């Protein structure tokens, strides 16, 4: 057991003046930015969860009157928008940020300041969108914002403007991060780490960045059309001028379908890290896992209209998209088998992280099965717009994606903070979550098939839905306790958790070879990599049957002296507030457009131009200042 308890590295940084709020506002360190993403996303998770809870209270029984219909519209819109854009994506981003440089043996990402910029844009964009609650006009057009419902004649208030502008702002964050990580993964791998030796999480992260690059521009344009219609009176979604009611839907789902793969692939990557470690076996079929990820991404661009089977596209379009949707189940299913075969015959340890990971494998499968059921257009005509669909996507996103992300949190918390999360509290968290999630979403398959539509704020008794809704609501209350326990575990363990050494789990990849938490510069010496599992030394093709690492190795504490960057002569990028300012001015620039609807066109234009100018000045200051001290 560790003798001297080494305090986490943030304490080290007190000597170099890197503590306190200012250090966080000016950080360009990918590890800190990852932590910022993590905690911000968890905060929004609580908000999105509260929105869901209110809805479940309303729907617990027939004829609920907790909230009005209008408020209910805002709740389901913001619940969906928050969970997708402000929770799942940023939780994934937390891991991209924290983990990718460590897994590839790099000191940071390719563009550290751009990385900070992405975070601040996310924070300010999320605050902007949610500020609408204060004005009593939260977005209310669904997370998918179908036009023409969201055009001025049908949505005259500012609600949709908050949504539309908020998403534009958030899109900038994701795109900037995508360019950053693509460059990082292509260009900053340690010597010897060819693409097929990269950790699987980094592979999934890499694939997701391409999905982001290709999908986000499409929703950007769809939103631009909506912006122009709403602010400037253009005709993109104006039926009386000959516009097509399907234009928005096509553009949105061309983005929206790749988006769901953006939501699941990082979790798949995390599960692919966790399962081998706690099976003491290499991942089964690594190349297949890589190729199936690529295939899912590529095919993911060809299935979008399966969200539109009920609009009347005609038999040919329906059939084509039905076939492509069924095809995409194949590479997805292959992954499930590979995970099962990874565990098969392994030396299994059921840590909390492992439990969350196994849960994804089992419950995502349920979500996948209902998904394949939607792939048949005639069947989907019954299922679409009912709770059957709600069941499907909550199984894949909550019982799937979120479970994978929590597996990642339990697995990587020691590496990020230097302390272990409590396994006993974690078990309570896990089991209550497991029970709660299934109790909430399984009954929805039934209420959906019995005809309960989506997005209704109340329902009459006696339609056969009552008991299912009651069960779902009880499940939600159980979930609330579970998530609270998860938060408490994090809160408590930050200060009181058992101190973690470099590799408490006995894991094989590079990030586990450095202290927990890592020093500023990550690696004192950039390693040369000769296998997929550097710390297991299995050789480049892996030998099934067990890891070389022993439990004593796993309990090894952090070194007592961790050299500073100065001692090693490693240049560290300057901390800088400039990315924050560029992000702030950009958000204010977009936000000023709201004034157009308050009949203040000239003020809006003046503010937009002023903020654009300030943004350009800050950007210029950023681009002309050096990233780090000059070195040779």
């Amino acid at each position, binding site marked *: 057991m560790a003798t001297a308890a080494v305090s986490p590295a943030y304490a080290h940084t007190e000597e170099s003046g890197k503590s306190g709020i200012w250090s966080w506002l000016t950080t360009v360190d990918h590890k800190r930015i990852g932590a910022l993403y993590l905690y911000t996303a968890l905060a929004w998770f609580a908000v999105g969860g509260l929105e869901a809870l209110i809805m479940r209270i309303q729907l617990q029984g027939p004829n609920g009157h907790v909230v009005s219909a209008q408020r209910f519209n805002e709740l389901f819109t913001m619940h969906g928008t928050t969970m997708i854009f402000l929770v799942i994506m940023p939780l994934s981003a937390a891991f991209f940020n924290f983990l990718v440089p460590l897994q590839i043996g790099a000191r940071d990402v390719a563009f550290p300041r751009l990385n900070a910029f992405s975070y601040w844009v996310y924070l300010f964009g999320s605050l902007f969108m949610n500020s609408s609650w204060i004005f009593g006009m939260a977005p209310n057009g669904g997370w998918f914002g179908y036009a023409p419902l969201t055009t001025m004649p049908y949505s005259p208030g500012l609600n949709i403007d908050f949504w539309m502008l908020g998403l534009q702002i958030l899109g900038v964050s994701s795109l900037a991060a995508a360019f950053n990580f693509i460059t990082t993964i292509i260009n900053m*791998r340690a*010597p010897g780490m060819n693409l097929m030796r990269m950790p699987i999480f980094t592979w999934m992260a890499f694939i997701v960045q391409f999905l982001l690059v290709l999908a986000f521009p*499409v929703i950007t344009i769809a939103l631009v059309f909506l912006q122009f219609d709403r602010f400037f009176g253009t005709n993109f979604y104006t039926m009386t001028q000959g516009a097509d009611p399907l234009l928005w839907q*096509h553009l949105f789902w*061309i983005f929206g379908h790749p988006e769901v793969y953006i939501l699941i692939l990082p979790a798949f990557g995390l599960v692919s890290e966790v399962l081998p470690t706690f099976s003491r076996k290499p991942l089964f079929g690594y190349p297949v896992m890589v190729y199936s990820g690529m295939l899912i991404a590529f095919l993911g*661009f*060809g299935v979008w*209209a399966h969200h539109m089977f009920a609009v009347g596209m005609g038999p040919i379009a329906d059939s084509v998209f039905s076939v492509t949707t069924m095809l995409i189940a194949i590479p997805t299913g292959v992954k499930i088998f590979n995970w099962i075969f990874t565990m098969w015959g392994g030396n299994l340890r059921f840590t909390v992280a492992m439990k969350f990971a196994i849960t994804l494998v089992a419950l995502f499968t349920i979500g996948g099965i209902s998904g394949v059921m939607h792939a048949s257009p005639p069947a989907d005509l019954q299922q679409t717009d009912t709770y059957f669909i709600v069941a499907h996507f909550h199984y894949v996103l909550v019982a799937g994606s979120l479970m994978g992300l929590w597996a990642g949190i339990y697995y990587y918390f020691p590496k990020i903070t230097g302390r272990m999360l409590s396994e006993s509290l974690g078990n309570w968290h896990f089991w209550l979550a497991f029970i709660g999630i299934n109790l909430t979403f399984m009954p929805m398959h039934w209420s959906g098939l019995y005809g309960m539509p989506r997005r209704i704020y109340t329902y009459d008794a006696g339609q056969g839905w009552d008991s299912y809704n009651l069960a779902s609501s009880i499940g939600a209350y159980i979930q609330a306790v579970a998530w609270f326990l998860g938060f408490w575990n994090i809160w408590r363990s930050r200060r009181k958790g058992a101190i973690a050494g470099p590799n408490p789990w006995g894991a094989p990849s590079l990030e586990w070879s450095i202290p927990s938490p890592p020093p500023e510069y990550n690696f004192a010496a*950039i390693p*040369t990599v000769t296998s997929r599992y550097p710390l297991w030394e299995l050789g480049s093709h892996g030998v099934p049957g067990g890891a070389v690492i022993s439990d004593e190795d796993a309990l090894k504490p952090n070194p007592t002296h961790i050299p500073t960057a100065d001692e090693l002569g490693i240049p560290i990028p300057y901390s800088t507030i400039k990315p924050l300012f560029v992000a702030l001015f950009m958000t204010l620039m977009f936000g000023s457009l709201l004034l157009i609807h308050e009949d203040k066109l000239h003020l809006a234009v003046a503010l937009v131009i002023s903020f654009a100018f300030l943004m350009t000045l800050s950007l210029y200051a950023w681009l002309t200042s050096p990233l780090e001290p000059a070195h040779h």
Partner: protein
Amino acid sequence: MDNPSTHADAVSAEQHHVMGEVHEHPTWKQYKWVALVLTLITAGEVWVYYIPSFVAGPLFVPTLLILSAVKFAIVVMFYMHLKYDHRLFRALFTGPLIVAMSTIIALMFLFSKLTLTR
């Protein structure tokens, strides 16, 4: 300069200078030919536009599409020197290009701007 560590790709460290590879890029003489060809194609496109019988025929649209595709390819391959650069850039460009073109074509079919039957 740092120690030349073994790179994953089989490319010599000398050939790829960190600053910006100096492959044999086209010379300025070749660039002028490229500019001439681009001008001629553009002139051809505009000329063809003013022949009513050709415009009315079935070859008009395919001809223009092919001519502009050729211009597109020439600019990308020579001016953006994709032909001469590391093949990574070719992959980084053609992937999104294929997705973009497929999306346009799919949308054309979905909105009945293109049909397979007459």
